[in-house]
């Protein structure tokens, strides 16, 4: 059933929120974007996602769907006749997409996040090495999944492109503030070229925050003590 109002509870700066926004764009599904105020959680959010109290939450005819990658799959399945397929069609390719998406959240993103937290030269070096190792793994994954095409998903961006690409804004901010190149064209040439193509995709451009705006936001939120 594709009828029913679509709302998305989220925030412009969140990479996880970006995932369903890109998917909705790919499917040309109009939606109301309900932005949460940083530092507080709306009644609607708490009611819609009592288990995690986190964004994004998709509300389709008032029924909530939570967890960004799960929302993306839901969008793909619900609006299956519009736009390109977000998940690949072959079971093995789907398994690879899901495998790498889980790796990105559990290992790669954790490495990225630990980089600005590193204190001193030793810790920074270790964090950088960990991220570089993760990048090298993803470089190979890209070559395996893309099979010579421009995106992980082939000719068009898909689930895995979205799962990784949503972090590119924050990656750039971390590069700026840390003064270290984190996605190096020399070390990960395929991934670097993919990153540019991803950011220029018409479904991505409207929802990818500008690096400067994101950097300013980062300064504000990291200046406060963590809750």
């Amino acid at each position, binding site marked *: 059933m594709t009828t029913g109002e679509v709302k998305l509870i989220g925030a412009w700066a969140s990479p996880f929120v970006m995932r369903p926004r890109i998917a909705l764009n790919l499917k040309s599904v109009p939606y109301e974007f309900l932005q949460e105020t940083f530092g507080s959680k709306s009644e609607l959010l708490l009611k819609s996602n009592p*288990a995690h109290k986190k964004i994004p939450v998709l509300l389709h005819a008032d029924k909530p769907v939570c967890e960004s990658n*799960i929302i993306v799959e839901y969008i793909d*399945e619900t609006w299956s006749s519009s736009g390109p397929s977000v998940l690949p069609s072959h079971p*093995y390719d789907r*398994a690879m997409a899901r*495998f790498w998406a889980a790796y990105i959240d559990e290992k790669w993103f954790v490495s990225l996040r630990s980089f600005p937290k590193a204190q001193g030269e030793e810790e920074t070096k270790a964090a950088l090495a960990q991220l570089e190792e993760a990048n090298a793994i993803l470089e190979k994954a890209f070559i395996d999944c893309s099979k010579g095409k421009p995106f992980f998903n082939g000719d068009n961006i898909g689930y895995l492109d979205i799962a990784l690409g949503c972090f590119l804004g924050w990656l750039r901010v971390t590069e700026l503030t840390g003064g270290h190149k984190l996605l190096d064209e020399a070390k990960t040439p395929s991934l670097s070229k993919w990153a540019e193509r991803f950011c220029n995709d018409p479904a991505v451009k409207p929802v990818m925050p500008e690096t400067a705006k994101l950097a300013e936001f980062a300064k504000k939120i990291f200046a406060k003590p963590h809750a």
Partner: protein
Amino acid sequence: MAERSEEVKLLGMWASPFSRRIEIALTIKGVPYEFSEQDITNKSALLLQLNPVHKMIPVLVHHGKPISESLVILEYIDDTWQNNPILPQDPYEKAMARFWAKFIDEQICVAAMKVVGKTGEEKDAAVEATRDLLKFLEKELVGKDFFGGKNLGFVDIVATLIAFWVMRTEEIVGVKVVPVEIFPEIHRWVKNLLANDVIKKCIPPEDEHLRYIKDRMVKLIIKPA
């Protein structure tokens, strides 16, 4: 030795909930498979070759290609063999099933493990935290035989971790994490599981399982930090 490409091989470990859930799924689908018992304390060259990223079981090999991560494998099995569907067909129900599966693995499993080896106030807090999460699942079972409705489904398969690992180890851990007074639905659901032929066939035998866990806990707790 010539290998038929349709052959299914599962690298697993008899006492692992993540490995057992794959066996449950393959059995529901009636898919014959070769089981390769792995020593996780001394990982084989085959395991390291087939899962270089995580170096963990379970790994499913089909058409010579390896797939890792139990939830990914479960979805692959459901995508590949269409009989006896494990996931619901409706996109919303499917999303909910995926949500609860993730919740069990990432929240409940982690919280339950924090109870082990703790004492006093720390232990009480860990138990409380686990129960708070389990209450969500308790609610989900109201009016249903299984999480999947009338039949076993994706969430039931994943939740065997609770029924046959978390709940079985309560005596060893020294606290009833899932008492029947607070979780009557979950207890009713476990009874339903135990009446199911596939579950009976695919869960580790209780006595052997408890002995193994006791052994492991002794090793882990006595091990110097």
